[in-house]
């Protein structure tokens, strides 16, 4: 029913679906400054990752090391974007974003996805390094688990992005703000 080429094209299209999805989420939740800031950061990192995709495939087992680095670049802005705002607090636009800063459960879900992807890439890099060094004869984890798990994480991340944008599509209101506490 599904040939190898059909599945490969499906995986490839899902890989590059992230950018249009984040752009859509950005427009849906445009009124919310916090979401606008988060999705802009994610879009920048996603563009960087997609632009390096073809090149990274030629790096052999260092592709997984690159994947670990990209996961970290997703984690740090998602978690520490308030710290980044502090650096540019003198600009009025970022001051408004800082005052409406909110870290909700969907951001937490995204962090979990990025952490999981980081662990997945770490295990794959370790296995690939062992294979390249002729310590192991096959890459069982990479062949059997890497693609399906990464696909699942990708789809789950898309779910969180859409959920977050729909939650904040109407106004700038939010349930709880950490900026009011500190």
């Amino acid at each position: 029913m599904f040939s190898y080429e059909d599945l490969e094209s499906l995986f490839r299209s899902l890989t590059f679906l992230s950018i249009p999805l984040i752009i859509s989420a950005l427009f849906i939740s445009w009124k919310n400054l916090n979401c606008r800031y988060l999705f802009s950061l994610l879009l920048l990192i996603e563009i960087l990752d997609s632009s390096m995709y073809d090149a990274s495939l030629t790096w052999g087992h260092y592709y997984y090391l690159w994947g670990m680095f990209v996961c970290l670049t997703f984690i740090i802005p998602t978690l520490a974007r308030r710290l980044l705002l502090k650096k540019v607090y003198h600009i009025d636009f970022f001051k408004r974003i800082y005052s409406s800063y909110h870290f909700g459960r969907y951001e937490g879900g995204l962090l979990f996805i990025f952490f999981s992807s980081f662990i997945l890439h770490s295990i794959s890099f370790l296995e690939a390094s062992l294979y390249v060094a002729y310590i192991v004869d096959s890459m069982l984890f990479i062949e059997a688990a890497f693609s399906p798990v990464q696909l699942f994480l990708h789809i789950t991340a898309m779910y969180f992005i859409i959920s977050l944008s729909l939650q904040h599509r109407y106004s700038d209101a939010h349930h709880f703000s950490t900026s009011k506490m500190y």
Partner: protein
Amino acid sequence: MKLKLRQLGLFNGLWGEAAKSIRSMRKDARLTQSQLGQKLIPAVDQATISNWETGKTPVPLTSYFLICFVCGFSPEEKTKQLIDSQQPENKRN
């Protein structure tokens, strides 16, 4: 030496942000501190969650990982109400 101190500052900054995010994630997921603590593996008490949120004790990385999972994948308010409304019927059966 200066670079190491700066890196330590960034590390402490990230950990501080993680601690602050726990409370806002928990509130957004409509969980109390004790409810969140019970859902973790291993389960922790309300005081531990409170210490993590205020930054008195650093939250372990694996626990923060699990907190993100629990809060991120917690059901929506309407689904929770639906499950709660169906529970007495299940007990009767």
